[in-house]
């Protein structure tokens, strides 16, 4: 299996940003098809038949999600989640920067399926270059009549606004994104009600990831059967996989789901630096429990990653080679989630904070192996007890690291304790010496 060029087709062309070039290459034909050759129910059923699963992390069926929106004439909203902040993930950045019009077209088609008339692309504020590109693309689409009232003289109206976040990982969580878009602190909401019923401004809202909406354009353009012909039965279609960390050629690779992790890590990304092996890897961004070298032979799909005890998540592989000590990595990870926890739910706010403190304790030589049990308990008490999965996203990888590499953590604890005892002994005798000198000869 090799790399595909479907979502990433023509991304080597700099002029693809212009709407004219995109149209020449077949752009906005799928929109015409969805507007004039199909009715909204057909668009929806085509999406359901394609088996497209959300590319933002949860992997929920996109068509099903869109079908949950109530029918009838009311203000309905479509939100594109472009707040790509998961460590290790940079696929949406590529799709938006290189081919913004596919996303715009995907948003419009998605709005037809959902019956939405207002749309927002919530892009993280750090992606200012990509947001400028999207702004320009949206303006061009308005000029050509693809956006606005009565698109191409059809019955469908849809407006689209690019909304920039201001730096908060939690705004990638769909209900926190809605709060951010409503101009509040990005705190997740209690579910249910789900956004499909009560989302943005309390109206029915469809929220999809950038790559998902790009796939929507492909499915309407080329058909559900074509989309299903790629990947496995439960993980259909092409997928852009970000590979980073300790590999020689990090980057985005578009593949069929079902390729093995080994082909991605060793084949496409060049593997770890020479002479080193894979110690562990995150299959779906930093929130996914780590897997071991032996799991590289599993097919890279939603179902196989779940069966192996992890998740496909955003399908972003971070490779950790065998020269990396795990404790600093675990600490960095825990610090990230502590920083990004919104503070609304106690288990997450306190759990991330105490996990950081306990990991620091190990390094300071104050921990005992029993701390690992306590830390594992803290993780258990976070999982499933919060409004959103941010806390779980720390608890799962940290828990899996302790589980798979317990010996390394215990060795680190023992070594740090020994170092501390030696230091204490040294400072004690120095103090004694000073006291003895001061006292003078007896």
């Amino acid at each position: 299996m090799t790399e595909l060029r479907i979502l990433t087709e023509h991304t080597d062309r700099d002029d693809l940003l212009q709407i004219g070039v995109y149209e020449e290459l077949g752009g906005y034909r799928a929109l015409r098809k969805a507007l004039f050759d199909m009715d909204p129910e057909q668009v929806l059923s085509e999406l359901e038949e394609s088996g497209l699963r959300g590319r933002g992390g949860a992997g929920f069926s996109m068509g099903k999600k869109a079908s949950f929106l109530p029918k009838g004439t009311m203000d309905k909203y479509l939100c594109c989640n472009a707040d790509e902040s998961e460590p290790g993930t940079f696929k949406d950045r590529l799709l938006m920067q290189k081919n913004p019009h596919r996303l715009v077209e995907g948003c419009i088609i998605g709005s037809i399926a959902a019956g939405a008339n207002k749309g927002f692309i919530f892009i993280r504020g750090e992606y200012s270059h990509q947001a400028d590109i999207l702004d320009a693309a949206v303006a061009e689409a308005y000029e050509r009549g693809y956006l606005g009232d009565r698109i191409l003289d059809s019955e469908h109206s849809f407006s689209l606004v690019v909304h920039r976040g201001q730096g908060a990982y939690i705004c990638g969580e769909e209900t926190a994104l809605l709060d951010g878009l409503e101009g509040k602190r990005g705190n997740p909401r209690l579910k249910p009600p789900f956004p499909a019923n009560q989302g943005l401004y309390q109206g029915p809202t469809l929220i999809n990831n950038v790559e998902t909406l790009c796939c929507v354009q492909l499915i309407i353009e080329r058909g559900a059967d074509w989309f299903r012909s790629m990947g496995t039965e439960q993980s259909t279609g092409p997928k852009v996989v970000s590979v980073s960390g300790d590999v020689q050629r990090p980057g985005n690779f578009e593949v069929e789901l079902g390729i093995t992790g080994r082909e991605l890590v060793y084949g496409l990304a060049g593997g770890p630096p020479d002479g080193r092996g894979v110690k562990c890897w995150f299959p779906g961004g930093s929130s996914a429990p780590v897997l071991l070298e032996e799991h590289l032979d599993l097919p890279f799909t939603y179902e196989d990653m779940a069966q192996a005890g992890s998740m496909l998540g955003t399908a972003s592989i971070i490779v950790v080679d065998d020269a990396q000590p795990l404790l600093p990595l675990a600490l960095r990870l825990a610090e990230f989630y502590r920083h990004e926890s919104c503070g609304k739910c106690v288990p997450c706010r306190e759990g991330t904070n105490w996990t950081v403190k306990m990991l620091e304790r190990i390094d300071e030589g104050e921990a005992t192996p029993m701390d690992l049990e306590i830390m594992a308990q803290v993780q258990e008490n976070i999982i499933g007890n919060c409004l959103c999965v941010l806390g779980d996203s720390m608890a799962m990888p940290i828990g899996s690291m302790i589980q798979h590499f317990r010996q390394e953590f215990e060795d680190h604890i023992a070594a740090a304790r020994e170092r501390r005892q030696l230091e204490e002994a040294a400072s004690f005798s120095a103090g004694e010496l000073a006291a003895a000198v001061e006292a003078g000869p007896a």
Partner: protein
Amino acid sequence: MQAAGDEGALQQPLPPGWDEAVDLEAEPAVVPDPVEVEVPSELRAEIEGLMTKYPDRHSATLPALSAAQRLHGSCSPAAIRQVAAVMQVTPAYLSSVVTFYDMLRAEPTGSRYIYVCTSVSCHLSNAKAVHDAIWEEARDQGLEDVEIRQFECLGGCDMAPMASVDGRYVGPLGEDDAPEIVSALKEGRTVLPGRSLEDPGYKLPWDESPRPPLDATAHPDIHPAGGTVVHPDNEELDR
């Protein structure tokens, strides 16, 4: 310049009021009377334009605060009061938003910024050393009015270690890039021309050379291209 670079953790100044007792005698903050607050006309026009883009004017909060920060250098009490007057909301509501988001700052920290990503992938590529090198270089060259801080994942993991200089993503960086980054900022030049994601024709260093062919001889551990996928519980491994 913000005093970062020491300690391992991300250094954030305490939000205003964090270590002060509440003034119980003070009048409650109310929505400012638009007549009483003088707002620069460009800022007013920008915020009013933003509010018309959304069904609910509150949605303009983030871009409005960002615009005020661009003008005033930070979301200072005066800046917040101006936004509150135009948007007709309470200053307290706005400062609750300012203290939540990483890119909005209540204290003046500099009109330009260098965010050095030190999250997982960059951490594995020794990003902390790059951050420290830039910080030390900035101190040595006397760079002022620039905020240098460690930042959480910026989504540039393929170019790790990397940094965002006023939104310009540059990487992969080494400690030896620090002098050039700092002096370019100091002299107002483009930072690392040709090495930013937004530069036309930007390529990662390893993409300059063709990838070794994906065959079994070059990579003994790889399945032959197109080969069947192997399950670990499948006895008949055919490698």
